[in-house]
């Protein structure tokens, strides 16, 4: 019974720590190293990146969500630290323009095809 409890506890600890590790890695991959040339915090070994890695690991272990960690860092360093630009008033154009162009292109194509078919008829 005791052995079984030990196995279950060990399994839970491993699962939680692995989950935290992959969450930390995912967050670090989406953070820009401010002192490097286009590198993520995860890829960089600069002094700044090493500090941020430690801070993020601590925050993950404290139980903060991915969103909360992004919020904390963008509050301190601005949205520039995030590779994935958040949806805000000044980024509406960036987020919605591809969809608008896609719909507009589709509509133009539809009208053109329709006109040609009518001509052939």
């Amino acid at each position: 019974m005791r052995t079984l409890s030990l196995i279950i506890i060990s399994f839970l600890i491993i699962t939680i720590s692995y989950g935290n590790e992959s969450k930390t890695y995912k967050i670090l991959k989406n953070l820009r190293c401010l002192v490097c040339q286009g590198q993520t915090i995860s890829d960089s070994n600069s002094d700044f990146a090493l500090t941020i890695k430690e801070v993020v690991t601590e925050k993950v272990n404290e139980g903060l969500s991915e969103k909360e960690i992004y919020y904390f860092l963008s509050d301190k360093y601005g949205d520039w630290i995030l590779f994935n630009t958040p949806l805000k008033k000044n980024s509406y154009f960036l987020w919605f323009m591809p969809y608008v162009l896609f719909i507009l292109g589709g509509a133009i194509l539809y009208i053109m095809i329709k006109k040609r078919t009518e001509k052939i008829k």
Partner: protein
Amino acid sequence: MKKKYLVTIYSIAIFVFVVLYLSLNKNNVYTTQENIGKKISVIELNYFDKPGEFNIQEISNFNFTLLNFWASWCGPCRKEHKHLVELSRNSNLKIIGVNFKDDKKNATEFLKEMGNPFFILTKDPEGKKSVNFGIYGIPETILINKDLKILKKYVGPLSRKDVREIQRIVKK
């Protein structure tokens, strides 16, 4: 029909030109402008040479505070130090030093040699607490008012021009 095509092509060309022009003119270098006007976080920093912690909220007791992040191993910090010594003579301003990822002995020697402009001296040996102030390299200096609002943030060593600007703000 030909006119329609020309209008479409010209519209697309103008659109592409405008997008490229705006993107290329956008400054992609990290600036600290977003921090201006924000309130500083509740942070406790360890005192440099005595046990205990200094709560950063206590700076509301001073009219203006200059929070300076420095280290003895940092060359530009040596360069700006004379400006900090000069600013420390201003009665309306208190300078709080945060010794960043440094060796205590070296930092003490640095201050002995260059003078100590700090009203309160704290330390951040791991550099993690400095993240709360948006620090990404040193030296960095933050000017804060009584309401704990960030008025200015200087990245890199303070220049003569920065000193004049700080003196002007603090005079008000």
